[in-house]
């Protein structure tokens, strides 16, 4: 990773801003590089006070694998939810589930909460930072214990390896 300096407090964010700017402009002209570069330096400096400490990504390749897996799960999640909505009998077993978090940093927890919302039948409803639990609402769940285990194996463990190991 690139070490942060005084004028580049968040180097990865700066790089990302520059790349997104160039992609949005669809041009690599010198003017766009300059304007994008100025924005990429200015925006992180201005909004630095609002940011949490950024965790380091220890295994970028694994992060890519994680995103591909989540993308696949989003599609299966939607087919499942569509089936549930279209089912005329409406046999649903909704439940509130308390998920005990083992992640400690805020940024990976945010990713986990978003992943839970996007994947099969679950929406993360409330994050209790004091008790370290995440309240999940599930649309159709037979066994809450199995749901917790699945989330832990499938999403939380890879995130721990990527950010905290």
């Amino acid at each position, binding site marked *: 990773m690139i070490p942060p300096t005084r004028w580049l407090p968040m180097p990865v964010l700066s790089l990302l801003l520059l790349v997104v700017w160039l*992609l949005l402009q669809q041009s690599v002209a010198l003017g766009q590089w300059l304007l994008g570069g100025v924005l990429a330096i200015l925006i992180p400096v201005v909004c630095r006070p609002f940011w949490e400490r950024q965790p380091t990504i220890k295994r970028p390749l694994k992060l890519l694998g994680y995103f591909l897996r989540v993308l696949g799960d989003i599609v299966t999640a939607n087919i499942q939810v569509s089936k549930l909505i*279209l089912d005329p009998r409406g046999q649903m077993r*909704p*439940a*509130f589930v308390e998920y005990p978090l083992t992640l400690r940093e805020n940024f990976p927890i945010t990713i986990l909460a*978003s992943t839970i*919302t996007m994947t099969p039948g679950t929406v993360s409803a409330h994050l209790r930072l004091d008790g370290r639990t995440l*309240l999940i609402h599930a649309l159709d769940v037979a066994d809450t214990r199995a749901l917790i285990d699945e989330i832990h194996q499938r999403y939380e463990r890879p995130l721990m390896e990527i950010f905290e190991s």
Partner: protein
Amino acid sequence: MLDTIIEGAVAFMLIAGGAFAFIGSLGMTHLKDFYMRLHGPSKTTTLGVGCTLIGSLIYFSREDGPIIQELLITISAFITAPVSAHMLAKSALHHKLKPDPRTRGNPVELESDKPRHTIEEAPQGDSPLP
């Protein structure tokens, strides 16, 4: 031949997008309580929008060169949708909306706040404020 494949992919994406958006909206009328209705728009409609955008991405990339903006829109839709769903769920818990009676699990957020003490028991006189 290639044209047919590309057109087929565009058509598939548009139909899938439309179908998912429709099912997501149907969920809004079909499901019983607020927490369940949250599942439709947060997942299904987002994927519907994503599919439509990817269809449009393929179509316009073939017409006039590669276009990346739509991919960025798709990514940002997928990043923001869970956050808004989370905020909606949080505010519903804050207002203590009643979940469907079939819902299992009883989060502390939904327990009714009983008054700590009745008026007779309330601290009187010069005792410190509760």
